[in-house]
């Protein structure tokens, strides 16, 4: 087990290297220099030069120990992302955004998983009937509506017209009140694709031979579904969940923007608007790290759920 984890961690090294290389090429080599914007309107050339020095933009790209290339790696590995355009430490910004983002995405994520898995179980029950077809059509329809429209209509009707929820993030309200509507919208928008996915998983499992055996034993459909199908289906479900978890930290770009939730998604939108490469680069790097770590955790989870998998 330990050797397995160590091996997997070593395997992560080239990936992390790759991500750093990618962010370097994207933001330093192609992205270029934003010192003029930092300096502000009508700033003198000497101020711009000074800013270039402060942000290390005047160093050579590749050559030498002090090159931007080396510094990029050094800083990322020590989680020192420097300061954003507004002089706040990037890492502080990210730390600040994680909480609200999680407050939004985690309930959304769990609600979607719980509802989608239960619905897909129900659909697996009535599989082949009109209800099943109806559910599939509704799912595909739900997937086809643009996410932006979900948000706009939700915000307009539920919050603005009917006043059921706050329209915008407000410090006067509890976090639960603030995220209620975004979570609802996120769940509504995410349900279609998820139900469809889990339905396929369930039906895949339902078609397996052991299910027939279970029926042949005289078990009720309910027992077969819950005891036999669900536990097997848990493997793809957990895979999907574990793959989604690193993204939870990122929050939701659009929901946060529309509802003013000061999370990482919002931070991202702002950074895009201001071409704040240091923030985008740091977010890319950190989310990749999360992804790699959660990949590892997923593999370990497999061994817990699936007796066939052992980590040797």
């Amino acid at each position, binding site marked *: 087990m330990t050797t397995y984890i160590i091996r997997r961690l070593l395997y992560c090294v080239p990936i992390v290297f790759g991500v750093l290389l990618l962010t370097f090429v994207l933001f330093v080599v192609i992205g270029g220099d934003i010192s003029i914007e930092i300096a502000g309107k009508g700033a003198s050339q000497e101020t711009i030069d000074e800013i270039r020095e402060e942000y290390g933009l005047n160093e050579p790209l590749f050559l030498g120990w002090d090159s931007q290339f080396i510094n990029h790696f050094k800083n990322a590995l020590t989680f020192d992302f420097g300061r954003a355009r507004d002089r706040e430490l990037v890492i502080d910004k990210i730390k600040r955004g994680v909480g609200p983002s999680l407050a939004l995405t985690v309930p959304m994520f769990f609600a979607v998983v719980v509802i989608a898995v239960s619905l897909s179980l129900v659909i697996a029950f009535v*599989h*082949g*009937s009109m209800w099943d077809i109806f559910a599939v059509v509704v799912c595909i329809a739900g997937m086809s509506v643009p996410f932006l429209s979900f948000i706009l209509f939700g915000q307009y009707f539920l919050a603005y017209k009917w006043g059921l929820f706050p329209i915008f993030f407000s410090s006067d309200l509890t976090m639960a009140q603030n995220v209620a509507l975004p979570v609802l919208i996120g769940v509504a928008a995410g349900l279609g694709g998820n139900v469809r996915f889990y339905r396929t998983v369930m039906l895949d499992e339902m*078609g*397996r*031979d*052991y299910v*027939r*055996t*279970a*029926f*042949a*034993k*005289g*078990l*009720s459909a309910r027992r077969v579904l819950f*005891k*036999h199908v669900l*536990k*097997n289906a848990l493997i793809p479900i957990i895979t999907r969940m574990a793959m989604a978890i690193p993204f939870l930290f990122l929050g939701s770009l659009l929901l946060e923007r529309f509802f003013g939730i000061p999370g990482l998604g919002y931070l991202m939108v702002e950074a895009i608007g201001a071409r704040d490469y240091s923030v985008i680069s740091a977010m890319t790097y950190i989310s990749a790290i999360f992804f790699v770590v959660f990949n590892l955790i997923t593999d370990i989870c497999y061994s817990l*759920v*699936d*007796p*066939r998998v052992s980590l040797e």
Partner: protein
Amino acid sequence: MDRITNKKRDLKSMNDNGTLLSVRDLSTHFFTEEGVVKAVQDVGFSIKRGRTFALVGESGCGKTVTALSIMRLVPAPQGRIAGGEIVLEGKNLLELSERRMREVRGHKIAMIFQEHRSSLNPVHTVGSQIAEAVKLHQKRSSREAWTDAVEMLRNAGIADAAERAREYPHQFSGGMCQRVMIAMAVSCEPALLIADEPTTALDVTIQGRILDLLDELQRENGMSILLITHDLGIVAQRADDVAVMYASRIVESADSQRLFAKPLHPYTQGLWESLPRLGFSGRRLRTIPGVVPEPLRFPAGCKFHPRCPKGRSDRRCQSIEPELREVEAGRCVACWHARGYESTL
């Protein structure tokens, strides 16, 4: 097996005491995008208590679907039992509610599947999978059910049954899995055990042991066995009665001795001749020319006629499908050229 009958005669044998299960005019269809696949058509036979009935035929001829129809486990929504009766101990299974049917499954009729490994749930221990059925049908507590399950495994010839019951299917070899399946099937002492190709994927040495185990259990419990196989050697050794299926119909049936002694249907004859037999060394094995027709493209008339030495040139064989008729006592065949076939009308 004493009677394979057509509709009219069958009514007489309704109250035959020796009959455990009788299937009449069973038709099972699959409704696919390409059209209706008639996987089982007008199949009828009956199984006597304590005896082994073999259903023989090539892959895809409808044997397994027949077995699944008896269990009422034809995969919905495409598959549907289109007609007929399946009478077990005087009750028509097709008329039972799903709830009553559940009491039949596993309890009265148990089934062993061909794919022994994938038929076991990979994420549950084998013990718990056996105990599950025991608990349900015998109304035992969990602990008692477990003890029973271990006992069953031991009876099925698994050493260290107590430990191995805690293991998962993937830790078992193929033969062992089949033993587990058998243990699970007989755990509730069913009246009928359906064994669908129980030995197909196994080594020859293990095949014999599994079949011996089935024989043994049959002797102990006095259950009937519906043996589904394509292996005529097994049929010859183990079956009391035999029905031969070809392209979703039964083409010939009789008790095994008579059938083996003198097959009437050209298909059966073909099968027999392709079987290597002791004492006939030196004779070249014959094969049946052609392939099994696709279910959606069954030929008109007798479905066997394209492959049949007689039917290929016979107009009647090409246009009218012969039905299954009793040509002598306990002996049925569906062939225009079979001796005594036309005189039965």
